């Protein structure tokens, strides 16, 4: 091993960490299965043709090295617990630690989903109360907390649309959505078998005039995100709802951005028939580096019969599961959804209460508007109105062909996670900043200073931006090469080459 390589492997600050497979040493074990329990003689029990011929390629590594491996890998990550994470439309607020504790209580974590109802009364009560709380926050009549993620909630909502119209004997094949919609909206509508019709927005908003020409008997409904992905409140939502309803359709709201509205305005009061919300955004459950989330749907009375099976119902002081619901769209998951994520969100709602939730939304909107106001001289803002929980800038007018990508990567060098970039698609080089309420003014001021400094660098030393990030374990990665010739798994041969 060369000195350089040795240093890189040992140097505590270089953090080079091989694949776990490359740390494997034949004969090492990270866990003792059992000293007493004999293993069966598999050959006597399992027919030969069904017995595995060679062992799966798993690593052989002692416990300490496994712990080091994942500890070192974790230092290559950036989470909300590290610092500011203003990823637009993702609501990366602080994840209170009490939530982790309550979800780990054995009564919740060790409960088997096939336990008889009499053994599951605590979770069933929490399930019932959380659905009631979420319906109240959204101004809806009922909720189902079964969908496992936002997109799963959207799909559930689209299947509810379908079941509703099937039940009425109507064939409606189209879903309208604005050009600012999250990609999951059209994908979810398509997955439920709908044809997607994109409606152009004006000045970032949908208006009744824009929607009207598309409405006819073939339209099942409209999907709307509110506040939308530009951080703007869809101020015509009630009028649009009226139009959609008059044409016999339903209104779906993507509630990914509910963090702007808690205790302030309720989608149900504005004509929304079905919506999903994201517990891993608005309700402070950690995102886990890409899940688990939870994407409950809330509905108006007319859609309740179609909600996924089973439903939890309360009778006297007792809770039970009701599967006898012939109009239900059916099961969305193997069991009931992400029950331990519910515990975290429920803990959060109890802790915050009605005042705390409202305060959170007010401060989230304050933070976003503050960033917008402070940065508007430096980065082009997209629309003149004040924003809700997030603000969107464009890279138009950046000097020296500096792009949004360059700005984002340079932000990493300044110790910040970049905002959402290049979305929404209607904005050139979009930079979508969502600070959330949990960031203090001083932290936000640091972010603003970094953004202003980057703008100065774009004019004076653009090469610095083009080569960013410089302070990460790896520099910019070749995503094109990754997709052209995908290497999706480790192979023995490749490691031996190294």
């Amino acid at each position, binding site marked *: 091993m060369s000195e350089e390589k040795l240093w890189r492997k040992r140097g505590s600050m270089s953090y080079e960490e091989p694949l776990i497979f490359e740390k494997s040493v034949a004969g090492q074990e990270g866990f003792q299965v059992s000293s007493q329990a004999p293993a069966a003689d598999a050959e006597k029990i399992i027919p030969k043709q069904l017995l595995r011929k060679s062992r799966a390629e798993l*690593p052989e590594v002692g416990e300490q090295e496994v712990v080091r491996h994942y500890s070192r890998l*974790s230092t290559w990550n950036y989470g909300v617990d590290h610092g500011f994470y203003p990823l637009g439309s993702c609501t990366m607020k602080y994840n209170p630690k009490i939530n982790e504790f309550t979800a780990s209580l054995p009564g919740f974590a060790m409960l088997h*989903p096939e336990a008889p109802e009499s053994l599951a009364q605590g979770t069933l009560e929490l399930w019932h109360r959380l659905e009631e709380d979420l319906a109240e926050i959204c101004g809806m009549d009922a909720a189902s907390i079964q969908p496992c993620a936002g997109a799963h909630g959207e799909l559930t909502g689209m299947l509810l649309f379908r079941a509703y119209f099937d039940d009425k004997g109507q064939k409606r094949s189209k879903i309208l959505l604005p050009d600012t919609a999250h990609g999951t909206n059209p994908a979810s509508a398509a997955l439920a078998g709908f044809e997607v019709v994109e409606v152009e927005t004006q000045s970032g908003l949908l208006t009744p005039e824009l929607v009207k020409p598309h409405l006819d008997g073939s339209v099942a409904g409209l999907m709307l995100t509110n506040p939308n992905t530009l951080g703007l409140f869809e101020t015509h939502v009630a009028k649009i709802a009226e139009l959609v309803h008059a044409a016999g359709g339903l209104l779906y709201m993507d509630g990914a951005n509910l963090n702007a509205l808690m205790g302030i*305005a309720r989608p149900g009061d504005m004509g929304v028939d079905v919506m999903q919300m994201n517990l891993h955004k608005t309700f402070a459950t950690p995102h886990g580096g890409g899940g688990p989330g939870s994407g409950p749907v809330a509905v108006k009375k007319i859609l309740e019969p179609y909600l996924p099976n089973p439903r939890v119902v309360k009778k006297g002081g007792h809770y039970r599961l009701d599967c006898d619901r012939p109009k239900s769209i059916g099961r969305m998951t*193997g069991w009931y959804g992400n029950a331990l994520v519910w515990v975290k969100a429920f803990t959060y*709602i109890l802790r915050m209460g009605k005042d*705390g*939730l409202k305060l959170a939304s007010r401060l989230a909107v304050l933070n976003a508007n503050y960033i*917008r106001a402070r940065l508007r001289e430096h980065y082009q803002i997209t629309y003149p109105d004040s924003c809700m929980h997030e603000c969107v800038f464009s890279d138009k007018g950046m000097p020296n062909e500096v792009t949004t990508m360059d700005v984002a990567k340079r932000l990493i060098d300044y110790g910040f996670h970049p905002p959402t970039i290049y979305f929404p698609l209607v904005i050139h080089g979009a930079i979508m900043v969502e600070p959330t309420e949990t960031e203090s003014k001083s932290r936000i001021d640091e972010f603003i200073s970094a953004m202003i400094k980057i703008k100065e660098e774009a004019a004076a030393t653009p090469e610095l931006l083009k080569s960013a990030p410089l302070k990460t374990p790896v520099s910019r990665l070749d995503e094109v090469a990754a*997709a052209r010739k995908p290497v999706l798994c480790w192979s023995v041969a490749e490691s031996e080459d190294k």
Partner: protein
Amino acid sequence: MCADKSVRAPKRFKMSFYCPHTENEIKEMLEAIGAKSIDDLFATVPPEFRLKRELNLPAGMPEPEVEAELNRLAGKNKSCSDTVCFAGGGVYNHYVPRAVDYLLMRSEFSTAYTPYQPEASQGTLQAIFEYQSMIKSLTGMEVANASMYDGGESCAEAVLMSARIAKKPQGAILMAGGLHPHYRRVIGTYTKHLEYGKKVLPITPSGQMDLDALKKEKPGLCLVVQHPNYFGCLEQMDEIGALAKEKNFTLIVITCEALSLAMLEPPGSFGAAIAAGEAQSFGMRPGFGGPLLGFFASREEFVRKMPGRLVGQTVDREGRRGFVLTLATREQHIRRAKATSNICTNHSLMALTAGIYLSLLGKNGLVKLAGVNLERANYLRRKISESKTLKLKFSAPVFNEMTVELGVDAEKVVAALANEGILAGVPLKHHFPDMADCLLVAATEMTEKAQIDELVRKLESAARSGR
């Protein structure tokens, strides 16, 4: 907390510990914005829709009180910690090494978002790449994705993918009679609006798929087989694989006890196009059924038809190895309505959990653990076959789960034994009305022989007194 009067809260703005703003700061911020009050910022929300009352929720509570309430709720449950658990049916009570829990507390992993910025997310990305490699090898397939929500959803997505693989998607979705009834229902939900027929193939008295019935089937969209099946029985995978090949079925092999993959010849060896299922056994608690971990693997030729996220290896500008999310052109944020699935948030932290678990257990440990499960289950099986009151419903070999005929209503027996600290299994009558007296019983490394003996005694006595 917001409403806590013991904190000297500024008059107008009640404080929340999760909202660090002081009144002065709020004033400064409003000045910078040029607004008089926070209310002004909501000017675009039409006044008639602003909520004129408080939300009908309790006021916020201090942390100790919240903890007490959650303790009360958790205490109303009786979990696998309070009982001896013989329930399985897709979720198993295995031991989770403490190092798994400890590492999952690294909030660098848990408080990150989906790794959109690879330079700041190499930890998650490398861990998922390693997980994909482990699943690939365990299933004997060529590629695996970054995770799905759970086995049921993974199974439904596999069926949808088979339609993308087919040149002319048509015919029926053929499902083995031993497919998990919940999974069958999720497939139903996901495909209700599509034109494919659905057919459930019968099982034989051995508890396995009726191969003669399969032989008579016309080519369909796909053939979904669970192995070991819902009743615990091993399917005749070699013959099923050969028949699927002969009849040109797209073969989907489902496994909901992933531990069995350590010991059983993997789906890839039997010609599966897709191997999917539930990997909760790899380090996840039962958690009342979520979050779990849907695994999903396929042959390389179909990789661009796969749902979900994929992590791929690449290089940085200095040629160093690094990892990125890749083949995004399949996905919703690029392809929108034409995406291979709508999945965005998946179950990344659960994939990390499985990666840590499998690293600890390792190549030999996992096989050993499977061997202990096989031993315990076959000890139970022997005891039941020797019993005068209990009967094995099926004759096929099992891995760690089996169907027991009690001769009396199984649900009542489970309720009675629950009071004695035993979760005896899963009664089958809700899914299979003709098996009202049958109980699905799993034995794992967590069920000691003495406890198995006790279970058998109690089942016998319940069966006798129930008659």
